[in-house]
């Protein structure tokens, strides 16, 4: 799916917990996330901290979008 968006000419970042899958589906910019049922959150954290974590993850995704890449690249947090 990411590939079709990329194909259309729009840069796309894939936020995904299982990064090998992300590699396999052909994403070029990849940000690893927390867990399958809650990729952008962690219910174990207090609400404020959880929000901060999400902000950090999405911020990383925005950084990925503004970074030139040649090949599939994983942007670790």
């Amino acid at each position, binding site marked *: 799916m990411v590939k079709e968006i990329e194909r259309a000419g*729009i840069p796309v970042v894939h936020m995904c917990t299982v990064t090998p899958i992300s590699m396999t589906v*052909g994403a070029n910019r990849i940000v690893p996330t927390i867990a399958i*049922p809650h990729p952008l959150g962690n219910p174990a954290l207090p609400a404020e901290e959880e929000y901060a974590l999400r902000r950090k993850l999405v911020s990383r995704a925005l950084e990925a979008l503004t970074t030139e890449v040649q090949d599939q690249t994983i942007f670790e947090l």
Partner: protein
Amino acid sequence: MSYRVVHYINQFFANIGGEEMAHVAPELREGFVGPGLAFNQAWKGEAEIVATIVCGDSHFAEHEKEAKAQILAWVKEKKPDLFIAGPAFNAGRYGYACANVALAVKEELGIPVLTGMYEENPGADLKDKILIVPTANSAAGMRKAAPVMAKLALKLMKGEKLGASCEDGYMPNGVRVNFFEKERGSKRAVDMLLKKLADKPFTTEYPMPSFDRVAPNPAVKDLSHATVALCTSGGIVPKGNPDHIESSSASHYGEYCIKGVEKLTAETYETAHGGYDPVYANDDPNRVLPVDVMREFEREGRIGKLHDYFYTTVGNGTSVANAKKFAAEYAQKLLQAGVNAVIMTST
């Protein structure tokens, strides 16, 4: 003069001990150790193991960077014609170490490398980057693996042209190489069809690519003036799933307006995805589709605008073909709406 080889093995094959000794740090020994004998014998003096590097599997996993640096320094010093690692058979961490050390030697020292392991060993993920000989899943396979590896190793040291993977016995590495089969193509096709008809195993000569690659688009230059869209395969939909997107075998995708929506709440949104525990996403749908954070970035001017629509599919039930079709379709809508970048989230 015979070719010089450095061999990498783990604590187990160096006879130091099993799992309880997996913590041992890298160590350099002169000459061959353990399984190296089999290679030396196969080379009949044409090549020889001049040094063996032994490293505990846990040690490598936990101190990869340091271990690699130490190993590279030793290899460099020994100036070998080839670096050979393993074979690791089905030992996962050993395989990982063999593959990664070999890759580092190849990339940083420019020395030919070779390793061997069972096809399902995680280290085999690197088969497109380094040559890996497939082996049995236990050390009992050494007798079969050693001659294949030794022969291929000699070829590499002599700088001879590599044959096709099935000829030279390495795992297919994405590089297609021609060779002459024993039978003509039509005969092979008839034989393959007969096996397929009898439900017997057969091997295709050209595995269909399961995916293609699209080159990355240039980075977004100015995010503060960019429209960014959110898409997800995590099945986030308005509460009540108005479009009845099925939790499995999804036949369509959802397109929903979030204009004026500050954040997703449990009262207004939920997940239609049937493939994971929905509790967390239903409690707080922002955990899958981070509208809340994006709005904040929008207010801060970090991004120009969050696109008014998001697109959603359910990852598990949608066929690859459908997923492709859906994404291709909404990608066009995004394009026409002037979206500059997309964040796709998956569960």
